[in-house]
């Protein structure tokens, strides 16, 4: 008698949970799926990280804008963590699921360069060349940042300090050596004529912690994505971003280019399809990802996440990835991480 009650309670709790989940996930999409002319019927977003991460936000945000704007009838999402996104990538390569795209970003290029071998059937190296790049959709520029009260006022000051005493400049970043944060700073110092390998890089395990390290005074500069420091703009001074020109969301941040250092770097986020996807599906998805950026629905999502639009489809995207690979390989060799 009592046991039945108990089991009923548990069952109800589980049902409640499942219902909440489903309603959270799909309410947005059900509400807006009343129109009938869709560019694409259904699309499954594969996400190589957990809920709440950068890839997750990109996939869910894009899916939301696509369905709300009436391009896509139904979007579904699947989180598949493991190996820093490698597991989802290997799944896409090995299983080639239908109507599925994978969200990825710059670390994919870095992964293609480094030693991540042996995770795919045969001797494949788990590279972006094993999948079909559809388009880069959004980007985040790199930023070199100091604390507001720092004597370093611009990137030249940082280089001067470094040249006087290389040990006096410790550069923080939100990830390991050889990661994107490290490469952004290394690129900037390389453009200033320094040996990037001599700049002491201090890794933290998250952007927020690296920021706290900078503000506590244990490091002098921070090299990370612009998006990571947007929340702390009152505490920091951005002394250089890797964009070709100043960005609208942070107009006070000077570019490295305008200070005479020819550094350009964008951490792109984009979508990839399995090699087996048909050309017509590929073209439809690619076009839809570009068209959606002109809609107010996309703009709402973009603004909410402070994304920078960089629609970069097809062969242009391929060429870009190729160029980034060449640049990063050279730099990573200098840094001794490969």
């Amino acid at each position, binding site marked *: 008698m*009592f*046991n039945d009650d*108990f089991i009923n309670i*548990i069952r109800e709790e589980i049902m*409640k*949970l499942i219902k*909440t*989940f489903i309603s*959270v996930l799909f309410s*947005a999409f059900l509400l807006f799926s009343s129109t009938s002319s869709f560019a694409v019927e259904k699309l499954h977003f594969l996400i190589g990280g*957990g*809920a*709440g991460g950068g890839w*997750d*936000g990109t996939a*869910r945000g894009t899916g*939301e804008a696509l369905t709300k704007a009436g391009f896509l009838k139904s979007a579904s999402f*699947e989180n*598949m*963590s*493991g190996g*820093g996104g*490698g*597991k989802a990538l*290997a799944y896409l390569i090995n299983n080639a699921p239908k109507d599925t795209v994978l969200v990825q970003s710059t670390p994919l290029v870095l992964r293609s360069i*480094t030693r*991540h071998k*042996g*995770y795919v059937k045969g001797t494949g190296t788990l590279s972006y060349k094993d999948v079909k790049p559809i388009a880069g959709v959004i980007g985040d520029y790199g930023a070199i940042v100091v604390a507001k009260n720092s004597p370093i006022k611009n990137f030249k000051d940082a280089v001067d300090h470094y040249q006087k005493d290389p*040990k006096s400049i*410790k550069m923080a970043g939100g990830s*390991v*050596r*050889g*990661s994107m944060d490290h490469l952004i700073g290394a690129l900037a110092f390389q453009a200033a004529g320094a040996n990037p390998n001599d700049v*002491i890089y*201090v*890794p*933290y*395990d*998250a952007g*927020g*912690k690296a920021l*706290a*390290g900078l*503000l*506590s*005074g*244990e*490091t002098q500069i921070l090299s990370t994505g612009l998006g990571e420091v947007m*929340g*702390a*703009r*009152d*505490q920091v001074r951005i002394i250089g971003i890797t964009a070709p020109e100043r960005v609208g969301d942070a107009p006070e941040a000077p570019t490295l280019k305008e200070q005479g250092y020819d550094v350009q770097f964008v951490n792109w986020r984009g979508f990839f399809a399995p090699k087996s996807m048909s050309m017509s599906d590929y073209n439809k998805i690619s076009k839809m990802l570009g068209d959606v950026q002109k809609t107010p629905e996309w703009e709402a999502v973009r*603004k*909410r*996440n*402070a994304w920078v639009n960089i629609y970069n489809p097809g062969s242009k995207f391929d060429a870009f990835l190729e160029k980034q690979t060449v640049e990063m390989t050279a730099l990573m060799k200098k840094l001794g*991480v490969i």
Partner: protein
Amino acid sequence: MIEGILIGLSTALSLTNILMVMVGCFAGTIIGMLPGLGPMTAIALMIPITYGFDPSTGLILMAGVYYGAVFGGSTSSILLNAPGIPGTVATAFDGYPMAQQGKAGKALAIAAYSSFAGGTISAIFLLVAAPSLSKVSLAFRSPDYFALMILGLTAISAFSSKGQFLKAMMMVVLGLMLATVGQDSLSDITRFTFNNMNLTDGISFVLIVMATFAMSEALTIIFRGKDPNRAAKQISLTELGSIKVNKEETIKMAKTIPRSSILGFLIGVLPGAGATIASFLAYGMERNYVNEEEKQKFGKGSVHGLSAPETANNAACSGSFVPLLTLGIPGSGTTAVMLGALLGFGIQPGPRLYQTNPEIFWSVIMSMYIGMVVLLILNLPLIPYIARILAVPRNYLIPLILFFSVTGIYLMSFNNFDIFLMIGIAVVATFLRLYDFPMPPLILAFVLGGLMEETLRRSLLISDGSPNFLWDRPITLIILLITITIVGWQIFSTFRKKS
């Protein structure tokens, strides 16, 4: 400030916001109870819903989920030894033994009162001193965090009672070893992954806890063939669910709560620590305050040992709003998601937040008081019913525990490999348990070990390889001296007893 409080109250007391506090607290409690699902996932999934809301309403809802989860996580820790979230692992150390003694209702009530007190007291700190506390957030550097982790390790002595010292130390070493699996925290070199991609991110803390606590507990019960719930069953259901706390226990709580609140809050303010570290530190420190007789009860159902981590994790949760709101620095994954949402609303955190959006700052703090009351009202009447879970025959209960462990870990990572890994670790842990190896030292070493290595190596990197960082800064030196004193005192008192 009075003006601010009034603005905050009027915003927080609007009908929508009170409703959001309640919804957030309720959802948070449920999510917290279910192992594997954490506040971070819940908040990430909620962002699309909060999109159309007023910014303060959205933040109030998210904050409600956050501290609701920390509140609710203790329930499964105490009843099933299956911590719902990492912040309530230390709660299981004494909460579970207490429940096994047939005092489940009492243990849940102590946890609820402690959480309530910890949350409320730290909300007062937040109200009075948030702006100046941002300096505390930035006062700690890597060497200080390193010293803090060493101090945390002294809590191991709580589990190395008579004859168990060597076993406890062996478990510490095992915990430290497990913490090294995965990508090295400073370079991109992977360690002990056997070329298996599933291990490159390391073993998750929740997985280790679920395997060594919940699953291996269930398996041990099967192996031993005895029913540990027998004691619980002999006691009538009313007594099992009784939430009455006697005078002696109230006095004990009254002593523990203030010091654990302060400690928990301060640790929460540090961006490099958080609720999990706070609860472990509070547990270890509490043992140093109490007298010899109470010390022996730690790990066996001590009121102090249950109250301290429960107070501290809720206090740390409020504390983590200091770096988030006044500096724009997220200290944890959960606060990082909240920061993203804030920026999405067009709110710029920082010292200027008081001037630019006073209603947000104050209404969030005010909603914390309301939330704490809501949680207490929500939880206390339910305890007698929830506690009866222990009266469920074990042939129903054990499969349920195993079921929730497996689904919980899957929901966390969506990776099948984690399920097999968890089962493997659980089987090993079960054999270790049968030979009386204590599991808490492993957990403690695992959670502190990774941070300890990372902060040590970072300190050395910053000091150009010199060990001077150990005494260069007063904070580091003081924490290390406290650690030496604690260890020295324990060695001294052991020898004194022997002679």
